[in-house]
């Protein structure tokens, strides 16, 4: 078995119907992994940008980029080496938890409290994926009720 490593691939596509399913179908049909996938239109263009976090051997990653290139509505495929990568997470806590502690923790991870209700508080953090994972480990003791992650977005340096 060749070494499997985590890779981030950015894909610029024409923003047309079914383009996303072409991409996800390709991953499932060829047995590639998708760890996370984010997609949004690029402002003031007819394109969208996808950020796909995947894993595989060098050969598999090369195949993924080549196979993606073959899809007709795909303009560009970047396999990133040196990049700035961010991910966002939102977490819901019971309001009975120690809000001050949670708030301090959030600040350490580029985040803050974004909503305070009668029974719950919601926080958000935005940071490197590894740090987000770390944050999510640390907040376990505050009994998080719900966690949502955005998936990674990335830009080459």
């Amino acid at each position, binding site marked *: 078995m060749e070494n499997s490593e985590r890779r981030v691939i950015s894909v610029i*596509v024409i923003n047309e119907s*079914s383009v996303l399913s072409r991409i996800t*179908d390709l991953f499932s049909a060829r047995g590639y992994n998708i760890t996370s996938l984010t997609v949004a239109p690029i402002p003031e263009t007819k394109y969208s940008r996808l950020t796909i976090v995947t894993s595989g051997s060098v050969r598999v990653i090369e195949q993924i980029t*080549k196979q993606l*290139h073959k899809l*007709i*509505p795909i*303009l560009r495929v970047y396999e990133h080496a040196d990049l700035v990568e961010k991910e966002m997470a939102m977490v819901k806590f019971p309001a009975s938890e120690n809000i001050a502690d949670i708030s301090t923790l959030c600040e350490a991870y580029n985040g803050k409290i974004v909503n305070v209700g009668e029974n719950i508080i919601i926080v958000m953090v935005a940071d490197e994926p590894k740090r987000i994972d770390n944050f999510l480990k640390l907040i376990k003791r505050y009994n998080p009720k719900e966690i949502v992650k955005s998936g990674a977005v990335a830009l080459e340096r």
Partner: protein
Amino acid sequence: MQISGAQMVIEALIAEEVTTVFGYPGGAIMNVYDEIYKQDGFQHILTRHEQAAIHAAEGYSKASGKVGVAMITSGPGFTNAVTGLADAYMDSIPLVVISGQVPMSLIGTDAFQEIDAVGISRSCTKHNYLVTDAADLPRILKEAFHIAATGRPGPVHVDIPKDVTAQIAEFDYSIDVSLETYKPHTKGNPRQIKKAMEAIANSKRPLFYLGGGIINANAAYEVRDLVHKTGIPAVETFMARGTLSHDDGLLVGMLGMHGSYASNMAMSETDMVIALGARFDDRVTGKLSEFAKNAGVIHVDIDPASISKLVNADYPIVGDVKNVVNEMLELVGRVKSEKYKAWRDTVNNFDELHPLTYHEDTDRIKPQWVVERVGQLLGDDANISTDVGQHQMWSGQFYPFSRPRQFISSGGLGTMGFGFPAAMGVKAAAPEKTSINFTGDGSILMNCQELMTAVEKKLPVINIILNNNFLGMVRQWQTLFYDKRHSETDLSTQPDFVKLAEAFGGIGYRVHTKEEFDAALKDAVEKDIVAFIEVIVERMENVMPMVPSGGSLFNMMLLEKKEVK
């Protein structure tokens, strides 16, 4: 001009110089068929099953080099066609397949004969479209033909809702196709080509590995030139048969699971593989880690994803194989043919040690003899299609192919039922040649309804049924690898093939002896109507040599040596 979507389809097909369309009408495509009725720009061939329409279009395309066109309705019409789409996708056959769809207002409501056609065809076409506005139709159809035929060819599916075929919009087919996201790379990198030619010149035991891409690229005659000028021996894949003529001294043979001993040994001994339009399919390579183990690899392919997918290429060259071979020919002076004499002798010795042959050791006709005999009698005058199974491999092994596009077979998908409709398409494309379909008693029943099409449209395909009362290839594997447990492969219960052909208005022959076979074939060729020639052949004959699945190419099961009668 302002015309309906249905009229646009007709106008576009005529503008694309389509002369033959294969298809089957139905509810959602009726507006288009109404326009077909009114026009005389192309002929429509009504098959008796949608799968056959696609295979016929494939055969037509393979024989003519043009884009094949088929038309079908929504729902079951489309799902019946999926096997054909998948087949064309695997073998890189350019097709445009137009299907009807339920009206836009009903899409997503589980309407009668509704299926998510583009959702299904996505994974078995090069590209597909759901047309939502007739104004897009000229552009989409033009793109469809362009995408199907360029780069690595393949099928393109266009799904048109019924109300879109009725909608009136502006039709202008003079528009240019401009796809900023689709620009196939056709010219090989000159520096890389130069390096590859140097690598060939420096190698001691180079070997051409010729693939079906050469046929698709119409590059066979350029490749012949390159092979002859370099004096380097060549092996062909099943899909490349006919690239070199059977009597070419540098053609070693077909390689792979049922390749010749010499071809597989040459591939195992070579120090430089020159792969042209081949994709290192598992049926060719056997065990990958042992494949051409000591060789450098030059890989020329139009599809970058085919390069280094399975075998790492030391000299990857992305480009149209015809362009690249022409560039190679300009540098051919560096390669000295004399240098490879010893290597050529080695390869010839392999062939003398275990030539591709069979034993005539039973009373019954040997299936290989039938293929050889048709080759002797018709040779270059016939185009050869096949179904899938033992007869297919014997056709690839024993027919004396002399030109590209002479051999039409389902290589990638391995679709039983392909042969007969494909042979009809071949006949429609090349009426001056006899169209033979080598088939088996299993395969022929998978599209035998096409007897009706062949009779009606006067497509006199000669189906040669090598009848061993077995699903022969599966039986062979069961004999060899499943301790002779012939599970569900005994086809002793059979129709009367002669009467079956006759029931449709064709002609049938049942043949037990060689004399009867010669007479039947002669008669069928003269009669010029669709025929079944059922040849009762030796039941337990195996296709040899054989590389067991996943085994190394050099570990072949070989024909037992016997005194030849």
